């Protein structure tokens, strides 16, 4: 009895919330090491400024309002581009998953376009749109389109045909069959697409902003490079990392809420 108690003690002795802190230990440790290395003079400040300097630069930019404005502009571009590209990708995925005719008409074309790296279109896009907002939105939408299209299509095609037959036997109409059987069945795969797309969304946006923009995080980083403000450059990179993590967490929360039925999301 006492043996069992002593064995099971460490399990029960967990601090509440320690599971949530666990993933942050490594990033925090890196920052601490980095600070120590900078202060000790192991890393030259012109190569990599200390975290405290980066934080200070961030604080200054925050006070001037520049940081908030640039983050907002980038966030806005990312969201609108994601909604447009994701929406179209989802629509094509649905159409091609549900209709043989639609798939025959468009799938081959889409697969050809997919194999063109969308960032290769930047010169063309600049010629078409200049460095206008629409250039960035176009590129983000194009990048986001394919993962969502492919995974929606895959999700719909792999819904268990036995469940579809069951739905038909029990008199479900086409719309009901879609709402109650096909869409929920495709949802796990759609979420995989969304998470891929979120990564591509940031990548595309930052590259586009670095090359052709007059505002946004990518523009801020390029401006700082012009003036040798290496702390601002590093700050921008760290903000990308945080924004990427934020987008991923948001999709996870959504996934947890909508896929509660899935054995992979059930807590024992």
């Amino acid at each position, binding site marked *: 009895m006492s043996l069992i108690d002593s064995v099971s003690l460490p399990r029960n002795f967990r601090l509440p919330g320690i599971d949530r802190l666990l993933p942050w230990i490594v990033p925090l440790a890196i920052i601490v090491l980095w600070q120590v290395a900078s202060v000790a003079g192991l890393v030259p400040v012109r190569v990599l400024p200390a975290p405290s300097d980066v934080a200070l630069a961030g604080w200054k930019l925050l006070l001037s309002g520049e940081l908030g404005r640039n983050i907002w502009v980038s966030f806005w571009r990312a969201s609108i581009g994601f909604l447009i590209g994701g929406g179209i990708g989802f629509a094509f995925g649905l159409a091609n998953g549900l209709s043989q005719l639609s798939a025959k008409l468009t799938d081959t074309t889409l697969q050809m376009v997919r194999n063109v790296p969308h960032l290769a279109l930047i010169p063309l896009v600049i010629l078409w749109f200049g460095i206008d907002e629409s250039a960035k939105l176009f590129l983000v939408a194009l990048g986001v389109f394919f993962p969502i299209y492919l995974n929606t299509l895959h999700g719909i095609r792999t819904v268990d045909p*036995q469940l579809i037959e*069951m739905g038909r*036997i029990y008199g479900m109409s086409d719309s009901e069959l879609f709402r*109650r059987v096909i869409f929920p069945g495709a*949802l796990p795969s759609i979420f995989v697409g969304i998470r891929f797309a979120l990564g591509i969304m940031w990548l595309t946006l930052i590259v586009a902003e670095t090359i052709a923009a007059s505002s946004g995080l990518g523009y801020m980083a390029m401006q700082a490079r012009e003036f040798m403000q290496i702390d601002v450059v590093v700050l921008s990179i760290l903000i990308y990392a945080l924004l990427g993590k934020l987008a991923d967490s948001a999709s996870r929360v959504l996934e947890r809420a909508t896929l509660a039925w899935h054995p992979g999301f*059930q807590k024992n």
Partner: protein
Amino acid sequence: MQTALRTILPETELAIPANFAPHARVAREERPFQASGLPLSIRGLRKSFGDNEVLRGIDLHIPAGQFVAIVGKSGCGKSTLLRLIAGLEKIDAGSISFGADAQAADIRVMFQEPRLLPWARVLSNVEVGLGRDRASDSAQSRAEKALTEVGLVDKRDQWPSVLSGGQKQRVALARALVSRPRVLAFDEPLGALDALTRISMQRLLERVWRDQGFTAILVTHDVSEAVALADRVLVIEEGRIADDVMVNASRPRVRGSVELAALEGSILSHLLSADDRT
């Protein structure tokens, strides 16, 4: 309601013969004019898949409320016959007719796999069985009642993934029963269950059939299951009915009784002798 009716109508219940269920008691509540199972007539039924002729002329009459088991070796066409009866496949030639007043919701199928929606709770899975009535106000109470019949009402808010195989199959049974079908077709519904769960599921099937009086058609490869449950066993060989055996044992049946074992033996020897001939 159910118990109230039971106390009012004790004589009628006793007067009904053993193989004709006191279904009126249950069915009367929701469907006053459709109290019993439907008769089923099949004439000259043929079905081919490509060059493979699976059914080669089936003629069969099943009276209302009868429990019929269809046995045969795999590939003999028994599942195809069931799918044709359930309207899941198109008929090549011949006809299948139920009574004149049959509707789509009167005929239900239960498969070897439970086919529950994993993203719907147990109760809403049962509500699926109501067909077009699933939007009505009484949908939930009817689904609860069907779950009570299969003894799973306490699982109503669970996801299907946490249920055992037998429990899933009972939910599937509740889903098939909730619309008070008049013909219930079973395609090896117990094939994937372990031996003990099978026996308790067989008892459950027999009980709901006796309660509700639907016409039951059970496809199975298990001859002892067929003789334990059915009024009549059809043996199908190479797309034709090779034997038609009445099982006259009284209900509830005693598993392993000499009478049933003898019957099982004769049907099995019939099936196996076909093996020797080929």
